[in-house]
């Protein structure tokens, strides 16, 4: 490799400002009698609580929250923010999570008073802009996935999965067909089996083959008319494309089963290949991954579910529908499974996604996927000299390393390497997922990271490895530069302190 200029990331990603002490909780900052709130002057009579309610209902003491000034609230929360790594501070190559940079235009759209300030119970006549947004987004998502229609209600990927399974169930039931099993490869994300249970099915796990893909023979052996369907992500969680997908689809359809596509990895294939064209019947998308909603420290997301024509009538409802050119209304599909969200889904996340799609356009979305795959392959190739790549061949948008050998030979775990990488100023990759890879480190650089950042990231991996081989103590002690050092997770579970009040 030629030498590259400095990266927009790495050690400098966030310099220490001052000190390394813990920030007190807001409850410790609290002083009786202090406050920050200000409410509107209403001119409504100041009835007492006793005048308004039966006394049996009345609280006998106020709920104790914190009592702080606005100034102290601001300082407290701002300081907390300085104890938090984020995409905006640097690269976040967390596999399976697609921590791409999210354009700020999406924030701008999601905070427009004409979107954010709209009550969800307002009639369609007064929310045409929102309905248009939904319909336009639904169409775009269907084009990207090759499906016929979609529900936008599910609030995240897992909610989409469960929705999809209920759609399967409704479909089979409408055919008078009772089926009990769902097939899931052992590389699947944990939400898949968990959703299956909630969908009232049993999980049949099939092992991956030596290529890291679905073992076609094992699959065929598992198939019968008790199988309601299969859940797959493609590329799978190893970042590998399931090349036999057409055969898999045929096999499933042969026994009357449906194919569910876990779209968490859609970022790899936009404009290249579509789940619908692979033979999938149901697809959820993680808008918070592929379509650039920032992850918010754990959410919110949105997990729309798109389906093939035969499932359209079963979709949750009501659905925003264009009932005449430029006129929108809520329409409930004829055999709808019902609502899966209290209102219309995570609407502002949906608006963000549409902004993202519209600013990119069709070509742009394909470019996103190309670059995501390019970056992942570059880092794979760059690291393969010193690291073992699990299932070493060209990958899609992410790549999985196995540190099994390192663990065996040096007692250094994937987690240790992850912690050491953080000292270099990057977020760690995903560890121990997928479960089928020993000591897995899963890297998803995403398309928004530059070559310079990839190189710096690769160097960070090398530095960590170097320490693991020559300076084990440094690896076990890592991270030493973060606001807290390695955290005692066992103690947290053992002597549970789940609220401030639960403190000993």
């Amino acid at each position, binding site marked *: 490799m030629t030498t590259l200029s400095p990266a927009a990331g790495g050690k400098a990603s966030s310099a220490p400002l001052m000190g390394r002490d813990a920030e007190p909780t807001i409850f410790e900052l609290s002083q009786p009698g202090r406050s920050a709130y200000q*409410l509107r002057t209403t001119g409504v009579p100041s009835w007492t609580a006793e005048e308004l309610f039966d006394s049996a209902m009345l609280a006998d003491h106020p709920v104790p*929250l914190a009592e702080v000034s606005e100034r102290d609230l601001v300082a407290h929360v701002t300081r907390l923010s300085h104890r938090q790594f984020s995409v905006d501070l640097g690269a976040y190559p967390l596999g399976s999570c697609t921590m791409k940079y999210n354009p700020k235009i999406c924030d701008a759209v999601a905070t427009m008073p004409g979107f954010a300030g709209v009550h969800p119970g307002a009639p369609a006549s007064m929310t045409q*802009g*929102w309905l248009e947004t939904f319909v336009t987004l639904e169409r775009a998502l269907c084009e990207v996935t090759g499906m016929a229609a979609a529900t936008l209600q599910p609030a995240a990927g897992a909610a989409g999965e469960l929705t999809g399974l209920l759609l399967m169930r409704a479909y089979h039931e409408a055919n008078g067909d009772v089926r009990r099993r769902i097939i899931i490869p052992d590389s699947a994300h944990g939400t898949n089996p*968990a959703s299956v249970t909630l*969908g009232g099915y049993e999980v049949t796990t099939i092992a991956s083959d030596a290529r890291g893909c679905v073992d076609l023979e094992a699959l065929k052996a598992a198939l019968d008319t008790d199988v309601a369907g299969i859940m797959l992500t493609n590329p799978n969680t190893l970042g590998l494309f399931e*090349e036999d997908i057409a055969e898999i689809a045929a096999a499933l359809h042969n026994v009357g089963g449906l194919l569910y596509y876990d779209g968490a990895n859609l970022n790899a294939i936009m404009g290249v290949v579509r789940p619908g064209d692979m033979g999938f019947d149901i697809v959820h998308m993680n808008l918070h991954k592929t379509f650039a909603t920032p992850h918010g420290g754990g959410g919110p997301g949105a997990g729309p579910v798109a389906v093939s024509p035969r499932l359209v009538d079963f979709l949750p409802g009501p659905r925003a529908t264009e009932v005449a050119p430029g006129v929108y209304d809520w329409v409930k599909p004829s055999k709808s499974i019902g609502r899966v969200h209290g209102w219309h889904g995570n609407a502002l996340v949906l608006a963000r996604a549409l902004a993202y799609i519209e600013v990119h356009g069709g070509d742009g979305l394909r470019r996103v996927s190309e670059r995501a795959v390019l970056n992942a392959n570059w880092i794979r190739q760059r690291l393969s000299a010193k690291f073992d790549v699990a299932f070493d061949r060209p990958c899609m948008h992410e790549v999985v390393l196995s540190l099994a050998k390192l663990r065996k030979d040096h007692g250094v775990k994937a987690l240790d390497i992850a912690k050491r990488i953080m000292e270099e100023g990057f977020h760690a990759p995903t560890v121990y997922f997928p479960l089928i890879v020993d000591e897995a480190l899963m890297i998803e650089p995403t398309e928004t990271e530059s070559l310079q950042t990839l190189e710096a990231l690769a160097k960070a991996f090398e530095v960590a490895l170097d320490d693991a081989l020559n300076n084990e103590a440094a690896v076990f002690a890592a991270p030493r530069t973060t606001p*807290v050092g390695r955290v005692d997770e066992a103690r947290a579970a053992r002597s549970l302190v789940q609220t401030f009040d639960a403190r000993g």
Partner: protein
Amino acid sequence: MADYLPHTDDELRSMLDFLGLASTEELFNAVPSAIRLARGLDLPNGLSEPDILHRFEQRAKRNTARSDQMVCFAGGGAYDHELPPVVKALASRSEFVTAYTPYQPEVAQGVLQAIFEFQTMIARIYGLPVSNASLYDGATALVEAVNLGVASSGSQRVVLSAGVHPHWRQVVTTFAAGTGHELEIVPLKDGLTDFSAIQGTCGVIVVAQPNYLGGLEDLASVRALCDATGAIMVVAADPVASGVLKTPGSFGADVVVGEGQGFGTALSFGGPYLGLFACTMKEIRRLPGRIVGETVDVEGRRAYVTTLRTREQDIRREKASSNICSNQTLMAVAASIQLGWLGTEGFAEMALACARGTRYLSDKLRTGTGATLLHPELNVFRELAVRTVKPASQVVEEMAARGYLAGIAASALNGASDPSLADEVLGHVLLVSVTERRTAEEIDAFAIALEEVAQ
């Protein structure tokens, strides 16, 4: 002009060279050509940010029901509460917004501590010792509560008050198709749940506080009923009400769920919102979703981390307590900030102001003929069921022309019929809500307009 992709042409070439590839197309060699998309995506060309902003501004113009341009009297589970600049500024800090789930606690203490504070606040508000780090929204939180209740009680018999928000009931019903729970809906009588017919062993009993017509239920007798039937007591509780009323936990609820939107989240056309979930210590290992615990780091410094992870789907897979993975953390962070801003006193004041405003409006409607109270004798909180002479949905449309989002027609939530309202009134019930943001002046004018329009 730019997209968000950093690769220069030179770099593209060098990267492909490094991989021994001649073109980006070859990156996808693993994708069988038979299934590849032979054409470009049939989507409009990308446009620039200012073009797209302009387009969204045009769309926004067709959303006339904006809380900054219409005076909002709509509630029904989504409220026009105060959302101060300071909370918006803090909750939108990019460190919170652009972080992932706190899998690496050493670099995620900010989010983790904010969640820990959130859990503490929600636990206190609901009067229970345990809260999780959020669920999707109130409706799906109720689904999780029912699942927990069934798992805990071992009985799939789930009794649901018709006073639970219609959408929430619908969501519970949808998911029961998968879990196989047997749902029974118990009707209302004079605006309150009539549990009198319930007998025998139950798995779960669900009541809403207040119910969706605003009525305050008698939680003590629900507790008694649960004791009698062996049911887990689940309350779908408005958390704002705890500012003035006894907490559901103090009545012995086992699980309390609710919608936290009122704490720092805009109306947002219904999402992202904030599912709240609190329970007893007894149920903690059945808790759905993430929970943050306090611990120490290697040097003994206080630190936070997600804990009891073995309940979760990524570890327990098909035996997990729930399938939830992404939740609504950012809203939880916003809620912790908003509740910090409200503080003990503000939380109580806000609830009281809602109650006062609601009383002020209900007093005005006592004398009307066009718009009257459906249940004049009821103790209500922040919601009022108003009976209109004209169909309620028509009233909403006509009130819009006068600058009001007058409320929600009960029929819009319920569909053609509903266990909570008699068929003949359903179309004439308008759900009206008064928050602390409504002034006497606004309420006065609204009452007059409503009386005229509803006639």
